[in-house]
Structure formats: structure tokens, C-alpha cells
């Protein structure tokens, strides 16, 4: 349990750090990927809904603290994305990387569009189609590609956690 908390903390810390600094330099078509979101999705798929929800909440909160204009928006979105994706994972073959790619694609759409709708569209700062084509679609593709990388790292951690829980169960 302690190892798990430590491993997750280090992952979240490093990803948040990368997201707020280096990511700005690897923009494609002026769009940044969102590593935190890809991380939430991968954790929720591999580890189920409880860990998905907790990690989603913490990652969202880090996102809110490190940037943005108000606190709580991404924490709320991350919490529900972790919960929903974590809840469907029992019915799928979770150790397939394509599942992670697909869910990252879908959840980027949901995450960014909900945020755009409530924060910008309702305040009359833009129309509905423009961001879809210029920001959300490229970002969803970018996130999906990066989720493969995160999946490869996380599946190793996943096996370590499984191994740890199996050995601790013996005693």
C-alpha cells in the first residue's frame, strides 16, 4: 500500500511538472497534449473504478492548482472520468493498449468539450464548431498517441502492484 501511494505520487508529480513546462515546446498545430488526462484514463482502465476515481480527483486538483482560473473544475471532471472508465473496465480485456487509446480519445472529447462549453461558450466567447476542429480533435489524437507511452509504463507498475498484493495476501 505504501509503495503504491509513493509510486502514484511520484508519477503525478512528474507528469504535472512535465505538463506545465516541457509540453509547451512539443505543441503540434498549436495544441498541447494533456498527459494528466491520459494518465487518469490508463490508471482507470488498469486499476478499476476506486483507484480511477481517486487518481482522477488528485490529477484534476493538481491541474487546477498549477494553472487555470478556478479550482475544482478539472478535479470534478477527472473524478467522473476516472469513475466511468474504471466502471467499464471489468467487461473489457484491459491489458490491450488499443482500449486505452480508444478511451483516451473519447474522454479528451468529453473533458475538453465540457470545459469549453461551460467556461467559454456559455459566456459568449466562441462558437461550438471552431474549437472542435481546431483544438479538441488534434488534442484527442495527440493524447491517444501519448497514452500508448503512458500505458507501457503503467502496465509495468500494474504488474508490480498485482505481485505485491498477491504476496501480502499469503500472510
Amino acid at each position, binding site marked *: 500500500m505504501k509503495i503504491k501511494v509513493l509510486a502514484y505520487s511520484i508519477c503525478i*508529480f512528474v507528469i*504535472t*511538472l512535465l*505538463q*506545465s*513546462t*516541457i*509540453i*509547451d*515546446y512539443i505543441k503540434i498545430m*498549436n*495544441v*498541447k497534449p*494533456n498527459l*494528466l488526462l491520459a494518465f487518469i484514463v490508463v490508471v482507470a482502465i488498469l486499476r478499476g473504478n476506486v483507484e480511477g*476515481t481517486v487518481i482522477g*480527483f488528485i490529477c484534476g486538483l493538481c*491541474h*487546477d*492548482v*498549477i*494553472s*487555470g*482560473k*478556478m*479550482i*475544482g*473544475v478539472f*478535479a*470534478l471532471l477527472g*473524478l467522473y472520468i476516472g*469513475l466511468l472508465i474504471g466502471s467499464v473496465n471489468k467487461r473489457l480485456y484491459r491489458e490491450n493498449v488499443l482500449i486505452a487509446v480508444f478511451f483516451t480519445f473519447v474522454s479528451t472529447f468529453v473533458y*475538453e468539450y465540457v*470545459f*469549453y462549453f461551460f*467556461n*467559454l461558450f456559455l459566456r459568449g*466567447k*466562441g462558437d461550438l464548431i*471552431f*474549437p472542435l476542429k*481546431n*483544438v479538441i480533435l488534434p*488534442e484527442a489524437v495527440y493524447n491517444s498517441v501519448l497514452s500508448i507511452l503512458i500505458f507501457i509504463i503503467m502496465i509495468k507498475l500494474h504488474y508490480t502492484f498485482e505481485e505485491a498484493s498477491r504476496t501480502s495476501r499469503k500472510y
Partner: protein
Amino acid sequence: MLRLFRNKFFLLALLTILLLVLIGVSSRADSPVNTVGNSLSIPWAPFQKVASFLEDKIGGIFVYFEDMKELKRENDELRAKLDEMEKETRDLNRLREENRILRETLNLKDQFSDYISIGGNIIAKDVGNWFNIFTIDAGTKDGVAIDSPVITNKGLVGSIYQTGPLSSKVISIIDVDSAVSALVNNYIVIVRGDINLKDQGLLRMDRIPVELDLKVGDTVETSGVGGIFPKGILIGKVIEIREGDTDLNRYAVVEPAVDFQRLREVFVLVDKTKNTETGNGEK
């Protein structure tokens, strides 16, 4: 009661309501919740400083090689320009001296004499794709206050949006929530960020008076109306005028003088008269 807290649905509902309240409370930029939130980002700050320093160095190498071809052409251009400039400098020096003498006689106060400038390095950019907010390594400890204008030697960058003890968030003028009162040819207009233009780093100029004869290349500066920005800071120049179907929805595209992609260091202007209680006012 304890059993209630073990119920997952109850916990979820409670957390959701708490978060909704938090969003509501923190949506005002100057609420204390944001100061607490910004304080939570302190553990990242030293690492962000190192990361942005490394980025600067590594990015600089690539830029160096990229620019090699450009340099020769640019060198020739600049030489020609330099000759021109030397002539202008002589004229300017004469005018500056004249201006100083005239100002002294009129007893005009220097517009920036009420401000002290605090240097800050950009340590983090915004995480998402919607806003243009960045974090600098100067906070309330250094005397930075909410709404202080942020500039570089080229022109206006934005203003302080939220403050923390060691860092503060700057909202740049190309952000969708930013609106600056500006002056073009002695007419007051509004320059604001636009969601469709911000990716190209451009601004949108609204409320152009019908009688204003706007031309491409006109310079735009702050007007001093609104109380946040002092008068006369360069914002940029007009690069395109887009006519609507009536005169009322005519708008112009403004290119900022500051290159937001390559921004590294900024200066925060702190009003001495407003900021006496922090003890930094005397500096």
C-alpha cells in the same frame, strides 16, 4: 453517521457538491481560496525553475542552428538600417533634450514615476489549450499585487491575475478574458483576446468609432482608462481591418509587440501609492 460516510455514493455526492462550491467560490480571481490554491503549487516551483532554465538552454541551441541561414541576409538588412538609425538618433537626442527642458518648465510628472518594477522569470505555462495564463517566480513576498501591469521592454504583456507567496499567475492580453482599453490615433478602443485568434498570438480590436480612420500599421497603446494599466505602454500594431456588414461590427486584428511564444522574462509594475503596507513601497 459513520456508516453513512462508508457509503460510496454518499461520499461521491458529498465530494461533487464540495467541488461545485469550490468552483463557485474560486471563480472570483481575488478570493482567498485562490491564494491557498496557489500556495499548494509551491512544491513544483523549484523543479519548474530548473526545467524552464534547461528548456531555455536546449531550445537556444536549436534556434541557433535554425537561424544561421537567416543571419547573413538579416545582417545586410540591419547594416542598412543602422545607418538610418544613427541619423535618427542624433535627431532624437536633440528632441529628448528639448522635451526634458519643456517638461521641467511645465512641471509634468513622469508617468512611470509612481511605479517600481519587479523582475520575474516565467516558470510555467498554462496546462490546457483554452487560456493564456503563465506563472512567474515573483509573488506577494516581492510585493506583487493583483492587477499589477506586466510588461517587457517591448510592450505590454498582461496583468497579474492571482498571487501566491512565491509565484503569481499572469493573464496575458491575448487571453479570452482579457480586455484592455487602448488608444489609436487619439481614439479609445477596446483590445481583447479572441478564441479564434489567440493561437496565432493576435488580438482583436473592438468598439472602433465610426469616425476613426483606421489604417494598417497604426500603433496601439494603452489609454490609461480603467485604472489597471498606466497610459502609453505599447500594445502592438494593426495588421488587418475586417469590415462587418455595418460600421458597428467592424473590427481589427492587432499584432502584439511582444512575442508570446518566446517570452522568458517580464517586469511587474507595482504601484507605490497602493502598496505601502507590504513595506516594499519605499524601494
